[in-house]
């Protein structure tokens, strides 16, 4: 990898790209943006790989790159939405085979609620609830204290629950209409 060999690039992509792309999709809610972030993460990886002291920690090295890139992207997106008053793209490319047409509308609304969260709170929520990381792992990955992670997580969950309760379509889930 340090020599920039083609095979090493392909191998690193094969091993770690699924992790990065999945995290990016969940954090950003957009397949296209996730692919851009994935490319950026791996390009930056090959430029900075010489600073990697312990080859065994390559996975966390890449994960840290991905989180930094996602945080920057979410901040840029927030700033863009404030400046140009345009709603960010919502779940383009969500088309999973396991999700039906009605569910897509619900998920688009949910993704819109996630976009309303501050970047750090959204990332904490994604890592904690979607990536199933512990509070300690989230704190280590995002270079935050555990108490900050807990506060961010509680605030994100509280806001999302409140916004869901206020939305008639999403509130139907509470009443068991989806089941």
């Amino acid at each position: 990898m340090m020599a920039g060999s083609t095979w090493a690039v392909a191998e690193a992509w094969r091993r770690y790209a699924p992790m990065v792309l999945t995290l990016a999709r969940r954090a950003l809610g957009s397949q296209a943006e996730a692919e851009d972030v994935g490319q950026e993460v791996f390009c930056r990886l090959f430029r900075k790989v010489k600073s990697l002291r312990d080859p065994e920690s390559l996975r966390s090295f890449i994960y840290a790159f991905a989180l930094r890139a996602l945080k920057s992207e979410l901040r840029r997106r927030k700033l863009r939405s404030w400046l140009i008053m345009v709603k960010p793209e919502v779940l383009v490319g969500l088309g999973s085979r396991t999700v039906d047409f009605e569910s897509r509308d619900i998920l688009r609304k949910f993704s819109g609620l996630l976009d309303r969260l501050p970047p750090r709170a959204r990332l904490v929520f994604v890592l904690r609830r979607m990536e199933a990381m512990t509070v300690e792992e989230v704190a280590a990955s995002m270079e935050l204290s555990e108490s900050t992670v807990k506060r961010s997580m509680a605030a994100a969950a509280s806001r999302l629950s409140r916004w869901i309760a206020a939305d008639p379509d999403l509130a139907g889930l509470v009443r068991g209409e989806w089941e």
Partner: protein
Amino acid sequence: MTTADEGQESRALRELTALYCEGMASPTAAELDRGRNALLARLAAHREGRRRRVRWSSALCVAGAVCALVALKIASTMQRYRPRELPPLAFRVDGGTVLEGGYLRESGHTGMTVLFNEGTRFALAAGTRGRVHPMARGEAQVTIEHGTASVQVTPDSRRAWLVDVGPFLVTVKGTVFTVSWDPLAEQFQLTLRRGRVVVSGPLSAGEIALRTGQRLEVNLARAETTITEANLEDGASRGPPVPDREEPLPGKAKPARSAPPREAPAVAAGGSGSDRRWSLALARGRWDSILADVDRAGVEATLGKASSEDLFALADAARYRRRPELARAALLAAQRRFPDSPRALDVLFLLGRVEETREGGTARAIAWYDEYLARAPRGPFAGEALGRKMTLTDKLGGPAPARPIALDYLRRFPVGSYAKSARALLAVAGRDP
């Protein structure tokens, strides 16, 4: 997964989160292949761009270094060939003083030396009359109106030295020479001891360039020009001794303002262009152009407006072209309009010379010489005036009335140019009853 923060989450949120994760499935193999290819292409482009940047940077560095070297070379060349600013020229006079207009006046009877701060010196023999002109930045001019001067010019390509000797102009190229002008005999002589000079003036061959060891003699009265190899060991040909070149000059290291002459500012005020126009024309032998100017402007108008310098130049040009009436008019105009000029007394002597050439003017010439001798008994033309008076008196009334003049001449000028004639006249007068 049961955690402390689960309590704040609604059931709907948990359901939606689970659905969201299911919808955000892992990328397919095709998506991964497409991403890998894009990454490889991007890295290749990045490497190529970096190589190109390195090449451009190297090329720019080399070009910059070459430009810097060329600029340094040009700057050093320009510095080397940039003419240094000429130091202002100043002078002082040993054995004499400087009058208004730069005219030199001898204090005693041993000659005087004009010392310039850059090393040039003019040693003027006793009785020699000269003038230092106002100095321009790249030109210096000294006039020898009468007598002999030994000149030693410090070579400097940035400054032209012109020595105005009677009707001749000597352009000096850095040299040592002796020059003399006898306005009575109208004889010019230059002996070049070192270097090179160009002499211009009323010469049949136009400008004459002399080399070391040559002597130029011009006799305007006889229209003779001769160039001979000078015997430099002959002390008589050297004129007054030239001071040792290595001797430190008192004013040499001092700036111009700190080394003024004793009785006049070291650097005279700049002269007008017209003052020098006819003087230079005269020095270059262009007498006809001066006379043509006068004819064009009108004699009366010229005599009424011309400067003192121009009137003297006009008088000389008219004398050389045998127009004594015009010469006389010019001198009388100079006498009338510039009675306090340093050359006012010279007019008296020159009027005598002009009257000699006019028909029946001998008595008037003697009268002008008498007036000159009365007003300037020790003047630069005193010897010549007395000698001419002796000659004319002899011519007019014979040796008897000329005898006391001859005795007076021999008493005052025992080695003067008329001494031989005076002794001959006394011998003849002694034999006469």
